[in-house]
């Protein structure tokens, strides 16, 4: 094989440069919005004394779950506070929630579009495959070019990595609504949006919530990687511990992430179940 190498790499770099030069205002705008959300959440989570936040979370846990979840939330968060990772953990939570909120805001409508149009589904599906299988480190680099260092490229990479389940499961959930129900809705003269909001979304809701749950978990799994581009938080602590070979600190910070993960997971799963039970009333 004596063919010349296809200069794919330089094409991509040229594209990156072109995008950076021509879309700078757009990227600045995105940066502004994401930083605004993260800062807002961080302020809310970090400004009050940690004990108040712990009480609020425990109360929430008790409201949507039972004593078990409330007890775990209280003990878990107190342990994080005790180990001295409170501020980092709240920074991480702000990052994860931002990524999750934006993923839901973009992902659910995209999923609905995919469910309505086979062509849209054919276009989106390979893109999602690409986003999920391309190693996350690779798209950290252009993120830095477009959004510079800090929390914003971290959030962007988390969204790219974490949004596919929300899109896929929204699409799946709506497509799985039995055809005879859709037909019945049509037979009674529903408009497309009446059909969507009165039938398809409520029936697809458990599936969509499973997708959102996955999205939150995946964005949490990105926090260490996000810290490599300058996102603060408990992920950064883990990353530092790894580079400095500090096993103890690494595990302490790791446990903080695990506790956060379990709380987020149970919260969304509980909300999912409660939502299902409350339907139709």
């Amino acid at each position, binding site marked *: 094989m004596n063919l010349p190498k296809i200069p794919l790499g330089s094409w991509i770099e040229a594209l990156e440069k072109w995008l950076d030069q021509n879309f700078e205002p757009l990227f600045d705008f995105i940066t502004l919005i994401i930083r605004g959300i993260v800062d807002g959440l961080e302020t809310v989570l970090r400004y009050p004394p940690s004990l108040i936040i712990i009480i609020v979370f425990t109360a929430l846990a008790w409201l949507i779950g039972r004593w078990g979840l409330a007890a775990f939330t209280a003990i878990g968060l107190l342990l994080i506070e005790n180990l001295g990772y409170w501020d980092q953990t709240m920074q991480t939570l702000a990052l994860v929630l931002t990524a999750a909120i934006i993923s839901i805001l973009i992902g659910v409508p995209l999923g609905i579009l995919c469910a309505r149009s086979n062509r849209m589904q054919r276009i989106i599906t390979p893109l999602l495959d690409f986003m999920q299988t391309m190693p996350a480190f690779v798209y950290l680099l252009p993120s830095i070019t477009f959004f510079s260092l800090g929390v914003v490229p971290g959030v962007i990479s988390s969204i790219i990595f974490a949004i596919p389940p929300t899109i896929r499961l929204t699409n799946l959930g709506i497509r799985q609504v039995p055809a005879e129900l859709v037909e019945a809705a049509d037979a009674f003269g529903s408009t497309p949006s009446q059909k969507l909001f009165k039938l398809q979304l409520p*029936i697809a809701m458990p599936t969509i919530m499973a997708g959102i749950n996955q999205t939150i978990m995946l964005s949490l799994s990105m926090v260490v990687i996000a810290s490599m581009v300058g996102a603060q938080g408990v992920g950064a602590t883990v990353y530092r511990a790894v580079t400095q070979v500090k096993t103890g600190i690494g595990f302490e910070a790791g446990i903080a992430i695990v506790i956060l993960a379990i709380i987020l997971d149970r919260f969304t799963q509980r909300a999912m179940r409660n939502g299902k039970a409350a339907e139709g009333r």
Partner: protein
Amino acid sequence: MSIIEAKQLTKIFGSEPKKALSLLQQGWTKDKILAETKMTVGVNQASFTIEEGQIFVIMGLSGSGKSTLVRLLNRLIEPSSGQLLFKGQDIMNMSVEQLRQFRRKNVGMVFQKFALFPHRTVLRNVEYGLEVQGMEKSKRKEMAMQALELVGLKGWENSLPDQLSGGMQQRVGLARGLANNPDVLLMDEAFSALDPLIRKDMQDELLELQSKMKKTIVFITHDLDEALRIGDQIALMKDGSIVQIGTPEEILMQPANKYVERFVEDVDLSKVLTAAHVMEKAETITIDKGPRVALQFMRERGVSSLYVVDKSMQLLGLVSAEDASNAIKEGQKLEELIQQDVPEIAPDTVLNELFELMGNSRLPVAVVDSNRRLKGVVIKGAVLAALAGNSLADGGGNHESS
């Protein structure tokens, strides 16, 4: 008055409906078109008229196109060609918005697998059609409650569909179809998923509801007994075409072709045919005649007894040849001879209910209408002939003369 009128209504599933249509018009069969063009003829040039207040049954085996045909009527499936009128208004030319209004106001639908919305309570299911019209909450609740009461589900409005039995679920389906008080109710195999006993109850209930509401109902079924039981008109379908349209009696007694004949050959005729089908002309004598005349009549007509009637054909009783000849010897009048314990039945009694009566009586059974006017007589031979499937060919043709 006709409410729905279809002319040459056709549905082709496939890539080039126009091509298949012209092949159909050239007389190609459904199978040949499928083999040559990979296109399926769902409904083949169906023409029919549905009268207001009628239960119009479309009946056929699975794959005969009956479910497709009913969906053409509210354009859940778009017709490929033909004409479709609702009260003279062209359904096929309706815009999206007109069609939506037509579905909201004029046609209700009930589905085979109920198709209830599992996340909504019974009440909110029944409200659905009213809700999408944008009806105010209290008004639609009131109308939905009326519909639920009509189908006997009052008290269940806050249950979820999966808490109800199949029969009750379909009542919800029926209430949902009726809630917006449509002109036409489409029922797609509405009772097919139910147990036989419940199915029969539902049929009875539908007939009872129908006697109050006088809706136009298009009822799809693959069950001939069901079709015969509830249909005013039956359209029998095969391979997408309508093979015969007629009243249940016409379908049974005058099958249009071999297919219909084979279809109806297993029907339990005793549950379908009525006294009116098998009765023969009664030999009568008016009460003012004497026994001598009666005996003379019997001799002329070759019978052993006569029905005695008054001038307005009201049945008074029966006189036998034996009694008449005794009466001549003893100088009695005709009215003294009348046997009054003649078995009587109404013209719409099914043969099934006739057997016991006939078994217990040595006299023929008189058929009288609600004014006790004598319409005819049922003799054992005619019943047996009818059950053997050849009644109308000979004796029984006079039932329509009344």
